[in-house]
């Protein structure tokens, strides 16, 4: 069989996959040719990562066949796949923080000389690989402490040095800025020209047009549509993904009230990750914070929420100095944080949803320190309903899709009627469908008079939801733009200034 | 006095056993009078630790070595190390197999263990089920005390030895634990011999906890301070022991060290007696320990 006259290097026949009694892939057929980029799109939980993991030997399919370069292919371990020439960059960062960058790139396939590790060669090759991605740092440096973006680039370098014939990239740009993304795309072009087949997964639909040759859309574990070109209107793709037509993504902005709720003055971090930041947010206002990755936004909002120490400066709430020393203090004052890393900071994955909700709401579910299971259940199910979470209270958090997990992280706080809500990358890795309901949540908060701060690396998102936008660069605030004067150009100019 | 010795090294297995503490006090007290310094090391029951400690004693230039082997095995190496330095080696309580010191000092284990067992068997009217809680397996006192007790058992065909177990450290904890286990399997026991007072008193407590105090008699060995006091009170199943001459053994050890250092002849074995002690005569040993 051929695709556009090219021979497929990989073909999948009727792949099924079940976890326990739940089938998540229902007979997928897929083909990838040499030198083409296939974009694999779909909502959260559509099965993109699962399918990729099967191809890369990370997990085994329940049934179905694969052929690779014309021969039957059934990798039992990642090693089998790597040996066959199939490499994958996983959605989660897969790095070893204590080891050097070079060792991370060559883990499991160290260059050896006379029975011993050839460190010189390893460093040289690592350096060359990183340089192609624009990352000029010592390959001997440990990965620990590098920004998410740099780590993502190392992950990509790891895959690029594998000399694979098929490369699977599962959301490689989720943590990248536009500069890094550009360099990545150059490398993808180079690989294409060398005849490497690529499966590219992303929720950033604008990228797809730039890089993909074909588009495959999945929904609920099935392949629902294929486009033989990437020149498809985004709206059409989205409709294929969600299975219905999309209404307006961003709800209309409301006018905030005049009274100032949150006031941050001269805030400086002891680690120097942000310096001298001042701004204020009004009742019912949505205040966006934009910037390139590593600009210090995460540390800033964490400090306001009491999660990280503050060196100098004050946080005022309704005119009162409440500069917090612990998250507990901030929460009691009505400032809550929806953290950047949902899995590590937002929810306890192997606890139930109602437990997760209870942990943030002891006051509501207990009387003078005594809890009752009935109250926990009732309280949780009320909030689950109120915030449109798909699931029931007794379900474990790790059984939920990313989007619903994120809703829990937000919902678990809102019952407290906070004055200030800080959201850090509220839609990272979340599909379009779930995203719009999170935007609705955010607007709902503002409408209730909450002062909302949204940190986002997604430019379209900050522009779409914010009344005002503060831009940060290298730990400093470089300007605050009103909704009317903000557009992608004006923000990027500030961010890169 | 020109005793020819300035520093004595004393290696004990485990200071938590009162018996060794008594020996230590005996050695220190007498040596102190003679102006001799004593360095004590405690192996906490680990032979490997004891070998290291002996090396460290020798590094400190001791002139004589009083040595109580920590384990049943491994007894030979410290003697060899000290011999290599030409230092007198005095063994107390336990005889290292294969490499005895210049003299070995221990209590009259066989005879007095026979007396203790004979006493408790007599109180049980020469019949019934009996158990023995041994000390640390393979040590001189363990072997000899069983030998003595076995003689008494064999003389009384009505007595059946239904169980025996070995402890590691001769401690009350172990005595309690072991006796408790034995009582579970054999609730109709009437005689218990613990090879040291710690074991016996632990066993007596287990008997009381099991509510069997009026059916069982317990004999011990050593004449520990705590044991003698308990005999004076005489309100537990533990009713007899053999009081060892610990103070005398300490004095004897120091004197032997001096003698060997001065090339005087010392008998290969010195065996101070142990005295059968019951509720009636325990008070005098509380007054003054032999």
């Amino acid at each position, binding site marked *: 069989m051929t695709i556009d006259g090219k021979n497929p290097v990989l073909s999948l026949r009727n792949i099924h996959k079940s976890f326990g009694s739940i089938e998540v892939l229902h007979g997928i057929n897929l083909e990838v040719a040499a030198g083409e980029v296939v974009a694999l799109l779909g909502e959260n939980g559509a099965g993109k990562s699962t399918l990729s993991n099967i191809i890369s030997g990370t997990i085994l399919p329940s049934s179905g066949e694969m052929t690779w370069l014309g021969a039957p292919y059934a990798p039992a371990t990642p090693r089998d796949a790597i040996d066959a020439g199939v490499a994958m960059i996983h959605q989660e960062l897969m790095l070893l923080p204590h080891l050097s960058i070079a060792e991370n790139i060559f883990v499991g396939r160290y260059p050896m000389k006379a029975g011993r590790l050839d460190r010189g060669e390893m460093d040289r090759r690592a350096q060359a690989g990183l340089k192609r991605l624009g990352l000029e740092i010592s390959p001997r440096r440990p990965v620990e402490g590098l920004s998410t973006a740099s780590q993502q680039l190392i992950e990509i370098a790891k895959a690029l040095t594998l000399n694979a014939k098929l490369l699977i990239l599962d959301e490689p740009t989720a943590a990248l800025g536009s500069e890094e993304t550009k360099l990545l795309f150059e490398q993808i072009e180079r690989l294409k020209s060398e005849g490497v087949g690529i499966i590219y997964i992303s929720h950033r639909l604008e990228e797809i047009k730039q890089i993909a040759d074909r588009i495959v859309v999945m929904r609920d574990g099935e392949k629902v549509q294929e486009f033989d070109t990437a020149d498809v209107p985004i709206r059409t793709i989205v409709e294929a993904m969600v299975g219905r037509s999309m209404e307006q993504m961003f709800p209309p902005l409301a006018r905030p009230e005049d009274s100032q709720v949150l006031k941050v003055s001269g805030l400086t971090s002891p680690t120097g990750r942000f310096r001298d930041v001042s701004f204020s947010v009004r009742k019912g206002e949505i205040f966006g914070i934009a910037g390139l990755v590593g600009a210090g936004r995460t540390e800033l909002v964490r400090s306001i929420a009491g999660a990280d120490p503050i060196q100098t400066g004050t946080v005022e709430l309704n005119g009162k100095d409440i500069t917090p020393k612990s998250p*507990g203090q901030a929460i009691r004052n009505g400032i809550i944080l929806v953290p950047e890393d949902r899995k590590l900071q937002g929810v306890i994955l192997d*606890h139930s949803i109602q437990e997760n909700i209870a942990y943030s709401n002891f006051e509501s579910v207990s009387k003078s*320190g005594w809890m009752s299971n009935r109250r926990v259940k009732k309280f949780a199910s009320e909030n689950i309903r109120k915030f449109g979470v*798909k699931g029931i209270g007794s*379900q474990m958090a790790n059984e939920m899709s990313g989007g619903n997990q994120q809703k829990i992280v937000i919902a678990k706080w809102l019952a407290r009627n906070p004055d200030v809500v800080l959201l850090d990358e509220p839609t990272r890795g979340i599909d379009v469908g779930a995203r719009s309901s999170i935007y609705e949540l955010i607007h709902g908060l503002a409408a209730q008079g909450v002062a909302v701060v949204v940190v986002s690396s997604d430019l379209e998102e900050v522009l779409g939801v914010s009344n005002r936008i503060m831009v940060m660069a290298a730990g400093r605030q470089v300007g605050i733009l009103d909704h009317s004067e903000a557009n992608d150009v004006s923000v990027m100019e500030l961010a890169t200034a | 006095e020109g005793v020819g010795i300035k520093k004595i090294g004393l290696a004990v297995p485990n200071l938590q056993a009162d018996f060794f503490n008594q020996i230590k006090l005996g050695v220190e007290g007498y040596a102190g009078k003679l102006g001799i310094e004593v360095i004590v090391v405690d192996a906490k029951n680990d032979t490997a630790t004891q070998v290291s400690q002996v090396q460290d004693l020798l590094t400190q230039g001791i002139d004589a070595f009083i040595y109580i082997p920590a384990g049943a095995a491994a007894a030979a190496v410290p003697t060899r190390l000290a011999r290599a330095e030409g230092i007198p080696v005095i063994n107390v309580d336990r005889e290292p197999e294969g490499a005895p010191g210049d003299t070995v000092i221990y209590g009259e284990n066989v005879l007095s263990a026979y007396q203790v067992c004979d006493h408790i068997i007599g109180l049980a009217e020469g019949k019934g089920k009996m158990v023995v809680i041994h000390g640390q397996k393979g040590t001189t006192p363990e072997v000899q005390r069983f030998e003595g007790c076995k003689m008494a058992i064999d003389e009384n065909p009505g007595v059946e030895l239904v169980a025996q177990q070995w402890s590691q450290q001769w401690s009350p904890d172990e005595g309690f634990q072991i006796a408790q286990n034995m009582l579970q399997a054999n609730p109709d026991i009437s005689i218990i011999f613990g090879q040291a007072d710690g074991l016996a008193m632990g066993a007596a407590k287990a008997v009381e906890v099991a509510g069997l105090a009026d059916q069982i008699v317990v004999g011990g060995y050593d004449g520990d301070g705590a044991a003698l*006091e308990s005999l004076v009170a005489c309100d537990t199943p533990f009713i007899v022991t053999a009081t060892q001459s610990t103070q005398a053994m300490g004095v004897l050890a120091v004197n032997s060290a001096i003698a060997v250092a001065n090339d005087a002849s010392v008998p290969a074995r010195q065996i101070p007696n142990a005295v059968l002690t019951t509720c009636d005569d325990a008070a005098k040993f509380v007054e003054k320990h032999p």
Partner: protein
Amino acid sequence: MQSTEDTNSAMIKASSGLRGAFSFGGATGPLIGLILLCAFLSIATDSFLSFRNFLNILDQITVLGIMAVGMTFVILIAGIDLSVGSVLALSMMVLGFLNVEAELPMAISIGGALVASALVGVVAGLLITEFKVPPFIATLAMMSIARGLANMITNGSQIIGFPAWFNMGAIIRHGGVLTTTVAVMLVVFVVALLFQRYREGGRMLYAIGGNPEVARLAGINVKRATVLTYTACAALSGLAGVLLAARLDAVQPSSGVAYELDAIAAVVIGGTSLAGGTGGVGGTIIGVLIIGVLRNGLNLLSVSPFLQAVIIGLVIVLAVAAETFKHRNK
């Protein structure tokens, strides 16, 4: 939108994450094991199945039971406490010193013993929270220190001479049933179950064990809770020491060596994960009973102590591996 979600949630069994206070949710595997063990011993021996033997077992598990409750809390927050055996010894020696040597009243002496024990826990907790010493190491160090201190009180000797009524508390079975020591253990069990299930503080332990960063961001004072948990564990070990002193009618600084391993084994057999965040006191009680019944049964069967060690090792492995299989088949 997201119909997968709906299918998923429809299929979820009532696998609630909340554990009932007196249900042994999550510990059904161990419970079945315990029942099988009892059934086997009832058939294999004459003496196992009797009220008296049952009371004996209760007597024998008192110390382990109380220690294991404290250990459960520590393990729930993903910690570990190796010092419990030494703390027990320290508590005993302080008790003996205060009551027998210093001739203070028993109530004050017990208070002193508990305070001394709790202090060890406070220090361990502070080492862990303030100095970031891993729990394993902090409590390993406290294990050595507490043991040394226990020995230093009397220079290694035992102390006897408690008032007669003290030992009677471990011997006399009130109404033919409960000794005071067993009653204390039962009270500890009930209080711990209620605390774990119905008190905010109890639920916080689960949150901290599940993910300390999430707990901290939820406003829980993780450091304080951690120090309190180690303090409670140490105080409970101290209490176990007091009960052991009553039982032995004597105290000696070499008591409790390696008890920490028994306590940890009981907790893990009872289904609490060393990774923290799941399990609880209900399971631990079963774990303690399994160990107690097993030891008792092996004695009744006159199994040699050496073979007993082998069998107990096998049972520990079986209990934990069985849990794994259960989860795998789910």
